[in-house]
């Protein structure tokens, strides 16, 4: 099948790749850009393990074709930590609060939470649960993922205390 040249800007760096039109963004990131931090859990848009930010929006990389991301800016889990590997506040909160076990779904949750915390306005308990219910985790029962994102939101001044749901 013929290939189309595209340009992806991933975590600020340009990647010139040629892909079949049917190639998903997730496969292009993993196989053409070598960024295997974006994981594929279902390839039909339910689990959210492949969540990345496309021009600032959280999307399922398995439901986008790579060609749709041509000339657009993508952020993946590899772009969260500092270049020397220092974890950012969200990643640190996951670490300190045991927000991951096997770690397979973690990149998707990190990108989903990154998106949520970058939206205007504070996050409260209802919003937190609503947004994080976009993705699936099989190990944590969500308890410590919620705790971790709550802690990060507090640290970043994005948390709005509400009465417990």
């Amino acid at each position, binding site marked *: 099948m013929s290939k189309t040249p595209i340009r992806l800007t991933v975590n600020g760096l340009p990647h010139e790749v040629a892909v079949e039109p049917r190639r998903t963004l997730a496969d292009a990131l993993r196989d053409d850009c070598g960024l295997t*931090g974006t994981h594929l859990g279902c390839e039909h848009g339910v689990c959210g393990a492949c969540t990345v930010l496309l021009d600032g929006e959280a999307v399922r990389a398995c439901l986008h074709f790579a060609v749709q991301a041509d000339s657009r800016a993508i952020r993946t889990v590899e772009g*969260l930590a500092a270049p020397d590997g220092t*974890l950012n506040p969200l990643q640190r909160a996951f670490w300190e609060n*045991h927000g991951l076990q*096997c770690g397979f779904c973690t990149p998707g949750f*990190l990108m989903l939470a990154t998106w949520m915390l970058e939206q205007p306005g504070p996050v409260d308990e209802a919003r937190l649960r*609503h947004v994080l219910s976009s993705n699936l985790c099989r190990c944590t029962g969500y308890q410590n993922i919620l705790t971790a994102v709550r802690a990060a939101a507090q640290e970043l001044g994005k948390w709005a205390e509400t009465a417990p749901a």
Partner: protein
Amino acid sequence: MNWTGRRLPRTEDPALLRGEGAFTADLAAGARAVRFLRSPFAAGRILSITAPDLPPGALLVTGADLEGVGTIRPELFRFNYRAIAQPVLPRERVHFVGQPVAAVVAATPEEAEDIAEAILLEIEPEEPVVTIDDALRPGAPILHAEAPGNTVVDGTIRHPDCQAAFARADRIVEFSLRSGRQNATPMEARAGLAAYDRATGRIRLTASCQMPHMLRTGIATLLGMAEADLQVVAPDVGGGFGQKMALFPEYPLLVWLARRHRGSFCWIEDRNENLIASAHSREQRHHLRAAFAADGTLLGLEADILANTGAFSCYPTTCGVEPLMALAEYPGPYRLPTYAARARALATHTCPAAPYRGVSRPVVTFGLERLMDRAAAALGIDPVELRRRNLVTEFPHVTPTGLTLDQASYVEALDRAAEAADIPGFRARQAAARRDGRYLGLGLAVFNERTGYGTPAFAARGMGIVPGYEVVDIAMTPAGDVEVRIGASPHGQGLRTTLAQLAADRLGLDPSRIRVIHGDTDRTPYGWGSFASRGAVIAGGATQLAADKLATRLRRAAARLLQAEPEAVTLRDGAAWAGEASIPLTEIARRVHQRSEQLSDLDGFNLAETAQYDPGGTFSNACHVAEVEVDAETGHVRVLRFLVVEDAGRLLNPLIADGQVHGGVAQGIANALLEEVLYAADGNPLTGSLADYLPPSAAEIPLIEIIHMETESPETLTGAKGLGEGGAIGAPAAIANAISDALAPFGVDIAELPATPARIRALIRNAR
């Protein structure tokens, strides 16, 4: 400083958080892609497999190519087990939808899929056997000639005095229950990468598995190759929950390809394959009959246990794992004077069954705890009180199936839970809600969980391959850091952290100086893996033993270097101390390795040790409490509160222990409400995507409250009892009891899980 018992964040995490973990698919660059062609029929005869002209470099492998390759045929020498064989690729017949029939190899996964779609697979369908009733029907088609009546296991325990107990009972409670079929659904599906090393002629299989050593043995045996020529690596593994214990046909096929074609071959399972063709669990039907005295004393129990274990028998546990665990462990934490039970595994044209977190115990606990609530209602005794009267209180206690219950806190955990649940307060809220037409319910589940059991327990099952022990190799490097090599293979349980904590305390060393190495048959001693709530107990015990032996060596060397007696030397803060004198462990390590002439009278001295641990087992226990609201119009259940009182002995890392409880409870809630593998009557799976098979999201799982008790086990070296499965064991029963309580005004009784809205609506309709 005591490291054990601290909520230490895991050493595993930073790489995973940076997206730098290495899961099998992340390592596949350069490998040729393998796509399995799977049977579209539940039962049938293979007539032909016709490929189009294959592009250069592509391959098609069928059963006919696998001359000399053995079959997957695990053994059990008890309970009327009939050994049945699973071919890597079948030549004559298919036995379930999704069974691999052929493998296509191409340069890319896309190309392999294109080729697979163009292959003409001609199968003459035959009448399938799909359900338990199908399998038992007289004259039903027989899957395996070796197993007449489709009965692969038929185990019986029958106490002679059981009938007498029923004869003198004041009340007999009798009912049937059913558990739907489930898929463990690890977020990473299966994956394998087999690579031929031209320099050595060896194969390295990297696979998302729970038992790398067992996988190596199994594949080498099937392929008739030297086990030493096969290395199995379990890299980062994205969850397993039991599903990744089994030897699946896909892995030997990858190794066969790598050997035959001297290259690298990779198969990354997609979610549809995982849902229909990896392993299923928990499809069981029980009939229970229990005798009670008027004061609520349980006098006797009869159980008839049927498990639909699918088309083949999983290696190494066999398909007996579900029914036989139910047979042995039905008495649970209760005093049961007499017991009679039969447990059967039935073969059907469905995906084979394999262990899934808790194995049979979620179903057993569902049965036993529904029994307690039903009996309480029938006898007019408070359900908490009825349980209290029957729970074992004196230890050790030998169950009617010969298991020995060690020190535990069955009644104490129940009382703590009942108090924390504020049952009187709940009853008031429940009454008020009912006046508003809202249905609240509260359900309890008390259970014990057999954990950390070694060889004797598996041997008692009569398994042909008896797992159990774990071996740990420990060594201090010349620079003074420590390598702990374990045969067990964690995949999310944080053993790298927990075992380092244990070793740190024994060696007086900071855990940051300790590296736990696992998941590589070239770099670790032979061992079994992480399953059956055994990591902290068995790998932990072996680590402690090995560290103690290394500590003895360090003390000996230190004694020589400090001119002291070994008994006078203690290890702390990274040094060996004799009174005021001390020497850093780094210095001891350097001298032992690089200045051994100073220790020349310690003949052949080194800083390496091996230890093996093989305990008899222990029982952790817990009480779960669920509070639910049921919408009587829609049948929808909302879990309002979930409380766990957990007693898993000494907690080695409470942060990790809590996480295990959380995850188990979430799976248990989903077991009760959401997840069910469904088949059409013709054996076609109806739940082939995550839009049909429903793992829960954060929206369905409430806050999970945990209260820990720590009854240390005298039966384990670390004092810890396992707890990996407990969450999944108690939650289904607690939810079922809560729903039944909520719908008591309708006389609804939950006897089938998952309690989906459709089922609850049907129960309400029929009750009315």
